[in-house]
């Protein structure tokens, strides 16, 4: 409760400082939107020539892309710039200021800023999600909609965990941003297409070791009714929330271990 109250104080300040830049602030959204429009066009150009990829049609592939983008954007609103700032603080030695406040540093880290950049992504994702549902003729009932939302929350936790884990590397190594970028902009890209197209080795990695399969591939099975499409085990799609919680727990432990290791620069 106390944290929510604090959040309500922090966020308006953040937005005031951002909207000062005026035009550029709004252009940021346009820039982000364009990236996605191009991505959808690429999928369209590819799928209108080939019809299906491994049994997935155009709108199903678009749905996968949308889910990856939606869950990432929701997680990034709360974690991306925040973890990015942590790295800078650690380099400059100003991270100590987070440690002396009477709040859990993890919570403080989250609430002191806000990823407004990603709000545009969320809007696009919701529009595209409705579009894909329409084209695929999916009309989920209340029950399945609720369970789908739970799956997505699990997926958001998976995305958030990767941001926190890779961002926390800054407590150990100097250029942690590269690790974050490799995972988030490199490995995450594997999930833009159905992971069943990859080799067995990569499928195992994307399911059990770096479980990006759970951000879109597995949850989507619950609404798409793909026969025998789930890899490994038919119950895996339902495991998404548990995987999310487990991974987030690990992420928090990594962060805590990093905090313990952190010693200020002495300034």
């Amino acid at each position, binding site marked *: 409760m106390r944290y929510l109250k604090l959040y309500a104080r922090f966020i308006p300040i953040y937005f005031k400082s951002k909207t000062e830049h005026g035009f550029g602030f709004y252009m940021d959204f346009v820039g982000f939107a*364009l990236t996605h429009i191009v991505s959808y*066009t*690429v999928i369209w*150009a590819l799928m209108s020539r080939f019809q299906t990829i491994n049994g997935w049609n155009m709108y199903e592939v678009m749905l996968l892309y949308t889910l990856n983008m939606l869950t990432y954007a929701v997680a990034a609103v709360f974690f991306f710039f925040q973890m990015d700032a942590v790295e800078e603080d650690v380099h400059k030695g100003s991270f100590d200021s987070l440690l002396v406040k009477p709040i859990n540093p993890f919570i403080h880290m989250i609430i002191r800023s806000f990823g407004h950049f990603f709000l545009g992504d969320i809007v696009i994702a919701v529009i595209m999600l409705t579009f894909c549902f329409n084209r695929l003729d999916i009309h989920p009932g209340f029950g399945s909609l609720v369970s789908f939302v739970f799956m997505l929350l699990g997926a958001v936790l998976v995305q958030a965990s990767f941001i926190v884990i890779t961002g926390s590397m800054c407590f150990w190594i100097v250029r942690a941003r590269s690790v974050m970028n490799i995972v988030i902009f*490199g*490995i995450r*890209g594997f999930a833009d297409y159905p992971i069943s*197209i*990859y080799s067995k080795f990569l499928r195992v990695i994307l399911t059990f070791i770096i479980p990006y399969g759970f951000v879109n591939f597995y949850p989507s099975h619950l609404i798409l009714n793909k026969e025998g499409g789930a890899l490994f085990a038919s119950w895996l799609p339902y495991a998404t929330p548990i995987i999310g919680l487990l991974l987030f727990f690990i992420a928090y432990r990594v962060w805590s271990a990093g905090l313990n290791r952190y010693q200020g620069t002495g300034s």
Partner: protein
Amino acid sequence: MRVALYREMTLNAFRSLLAFRAEVLLFLFGQLFRIFVQVYIWYALFGDSGQLASKAGSVTIQEMITYVVISSVISVFATNDVIFRVSSKVSSGEIAMDLIKPMSFRSVIFCQAFGTNLYRMLFELIPLIIVSLLFFHVQLPSPANGLAFLVLVINGLILNFLITYTIGLIAFWYILVWQVNTVLNGLIRLFSGAFIPIWFFSDSLVKFSYFLPFRLIYYEPISVYLGKVTGWQELLAIFIQQLAWMAGFLLLQKWMWSRAVTRLVVQGG
């Protein structure tokens, strides 16, 4: 005399990059991941049939994998930060230092980009080629095609530089660097054939891509490499188109530069 000057500028860019190994590693990994994703996408799309019909005759999966690898080799050189470099020099006023150098601003930027490319050749291109050869069966071109490919790629990269430089000059009027960069990268991703070869495009997309210069950077040189372009008339046509676009952008940037310098006011310094 002049050559020594250019050489120093180039080597300076090279040396300053040696301090940023992490970025290079990042780019290399990103590039390798992209190759893997694309190769698997093409395997899935080709399915059991080893070849598909296309606008350039039948294409085998081996050719397609070679296409992916060559495309990412080109992108090692075609991905540059010229737009960011130009605009940061304009917005920080650092451009004043370049204006007093005894060479044109364009040459300064070109040397720096060239130095970056030299560096990338050592630390990105060579590892990329080694990994590709280990994992994928990459086809080699016939000597004649290989030679023509080299000429067209170098032309394409110069064209790529001119395009980014010209667009970077927009910074004199508007500081919308990364948005403009995003638009450009999007157009390149779609219409250069860097990801989907134009021979798989639908007719409307083919038409559109022929109005844009980007296919001359990726698609056309790779087609030549794979032997999909036959006859010297066609080769010559590609070459002439490249020269025409280069000339066009040279004129455009000259005109923009002459307007821009008169606008430039650097405080203090």
